[in-house]
């Protein structure tokens, strides 16, 4: 065991080595101190499970839980040696994040109680491992210098943006407070993650453009796609694509919306990075273009399997909710909160919020759905209280625009 009250990254240990126990001194965090272990990658529960497949899953799962329990039992210094220097461990954790069934997956529940129990054990052990990896101070005696901790997790890819998003969507529903602490600590100790997030947002916007392109649509503000080939048979659309493509597209949309919403809900500090990429306006345009098209396809196409049609409808509705919530989260954290907290630049935030609402006016379906969940009138009222100098003509115009949006989508606003 390494010595106490000195950060792990500065500790030296003296250990017996070789058959005759000759002593040597080495840094506490050293590859030679890693134990020989053989973490196996995770495989999701089989869908049509024969007894042999069930047995294989259980055996596989037993290996993973045994190994992760062993890891969590290690003292602080040995844990970090394993985490940093054991590639099989990182492969195991990464495979879980990639392949573990989400609650939203079409077949997320294992078919046998034994498999379900095993899946739960793995789920917990993986979370606890990530939690320990996100903790630079376990106790007074067991800690790592914060800046070194930041370097370790970043340089060894123990966490990266896709992993953080996976953690949010897999564990965020019931463990949001713990996850918030974890992610906040990761970003605080290693600000490079903000840079990575900044690099990732354009890829998220690209995902939205890809969905639109598959539907033969183009988002406002998105870069122009390739011109249509002369010999192509018209644009693809949600109505004409194969049923499997439509299913995949809806699943993709559903997963993307849930993941982004979960992440911003758990770590609202990321809203400003998304904001810098005009994410809010792109999201509203995307919603306006994609949602009616997908809804129409799900409603009007002929499905042999009606339960599949119902499932897709639920997924489109779920995605709509998550997109609207994402928009609200962003408005709340980038504009409303600074206004309510009496920030110095209150006028700037008021102006920004009004501009956002004004930019939503042409996106009528989006605006009506947003207003249904988060009434714009409530926010305007808050603005008027926090900033009495607000231009009343402007707010009236805005509220009239919201009412028009409801009319133009042919719905009646709930009283």
């Amino acid at each position, binding site marked *: 065991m390494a010595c106490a009250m000195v950060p792990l990254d500065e500790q030296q240990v003296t250990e017996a080595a070789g058959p005759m126990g000759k002593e040597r001194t080495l840094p506490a965090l050293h590859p030679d101190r890693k*134990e020989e272990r053989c973490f196996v990658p995770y495989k999701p529960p089989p869908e049509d499970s024969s007894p042999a497949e069930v047995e294989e899953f259980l055996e596989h799962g037993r290996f993973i839980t045994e190994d992760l329990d062993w890891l969590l039992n290690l*003292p602080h210094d040995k*844990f970090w040696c394993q985490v940093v220097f054991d590639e099989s461990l990182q492969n195991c954790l990464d495979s879980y994040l*990639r392949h573990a069934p989400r609650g939203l997956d079409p077949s997320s529940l294992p078919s046998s109680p034994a498999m379900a129990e095993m899946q739960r054990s793995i789920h917990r052990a993986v979370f606890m491992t990530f939690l320990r990896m996100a903790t630079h101070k376990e106790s007074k005696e067991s800690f790592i210098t914060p800046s070194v901790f930041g370097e370790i997790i970043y340089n060894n890819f123990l966490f990266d943006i896709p992993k953080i998003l996976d953690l949010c969507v897999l564990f965020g529903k019931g463990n949001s407070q713990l996850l918030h602490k974890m992610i906040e600590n990761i970003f605080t100790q290693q600000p490079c993650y903000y840079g990575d997030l900044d690099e990732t947002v354009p890829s*998220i916007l690209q995902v939205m453009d890809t969905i639109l392109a598959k539907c033969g649509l183009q988002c406002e503000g998105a870069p122009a796609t390739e011109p249509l080939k002369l010999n192509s048979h018209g644009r693809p659309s949600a109505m004409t694509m194969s049923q499997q493509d439509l299913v995949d597209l809806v699943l993709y949309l559903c997963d993307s919306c849930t993941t982004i919403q979960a992440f911003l809900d758990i770590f609202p500090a990321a809203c400003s990075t998304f904001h810098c990429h005009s994410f809010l306006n792109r999201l509203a345009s995307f919603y306006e273009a994609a949602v009616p098209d997908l809804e129409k396809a799900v409603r009007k196409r002929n499905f042999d399997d009606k339960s599949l049609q119902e499932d897709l409808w639920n997924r489109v509705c779920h995605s709509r909710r998550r997109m609207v919530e994402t928009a609200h989260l962003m408005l709340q954290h980038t504009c409303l909160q600074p206004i309510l907290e009496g920030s110095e630049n209150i006028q700037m935030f008021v102006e920004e919020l009004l501009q956002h609402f004004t930019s939503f006016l042409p996106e009528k379906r989006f605006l009506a759905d947003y207003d249904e969940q988060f009434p714009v009138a409530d926010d305007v009222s808050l603005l008027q209280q926090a900033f009495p100098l607000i231009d009343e003509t402007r707010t009236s115009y805005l509220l009239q625009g919201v009412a028009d949006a409801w009319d*133009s*989508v042919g719905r009646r606003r709930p009283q």
Partner: protein
Amino acid sequence: MSPPRLTGALRSFSTVSKREEFTEHVYDLKVRAFWSKLHSQELFSREGLTWQKIVQFLTQHLDKAEQQSATQELKSILQAAKQIVGEEHGQDTIESAAVFLFETFHNKDHVGLEETRAIKQMFGPFPFSAADTCCAAVSRCVTCMKTDNACALVCVTRVTEADRHITAFGRNISFSYDCYALDPQEALPWTGGPDEETSGVGLDF
């Protein structure tokens, strides 16, 4: 196969993840099964008594002459452990087995029923002569170390399962298995434009 996921696309198209090819099948299950057996054999010694600790104790507490004879006994114990676990295993496994035998025999003068059962449970069928030789070697070694010292060494370094469980990270952290899921209650009404049919259309699920 996993459904299409946002994070899958981000891993493929963004530059913020490790670029190395993800290796799905680095280890096969047979290899891991072997390790599992090995680990169960090593478990008792991983954080408790180790061969190095026994060697270290002898180096620090015995004079040169005693050390020499104790070292001979240790060699005999290792040799017996090798016969019991099988020649094909590596040095680490043999040393772990030797520690197990040392713990088993440190306060015994012969191989009784209880010891036989414990060894068989751990390693399967074994040559009794090897256990007998080992028991005698441990007994002579303990005499060199002074019996009380040997008992203290075994007891102080012994880590029980209960101890291990208490120290497990996250043991006291409450964890929720809740996950994001589809909620049929969230199904919103149809929001087609005015040109869309809005009446008489049912999903008829």
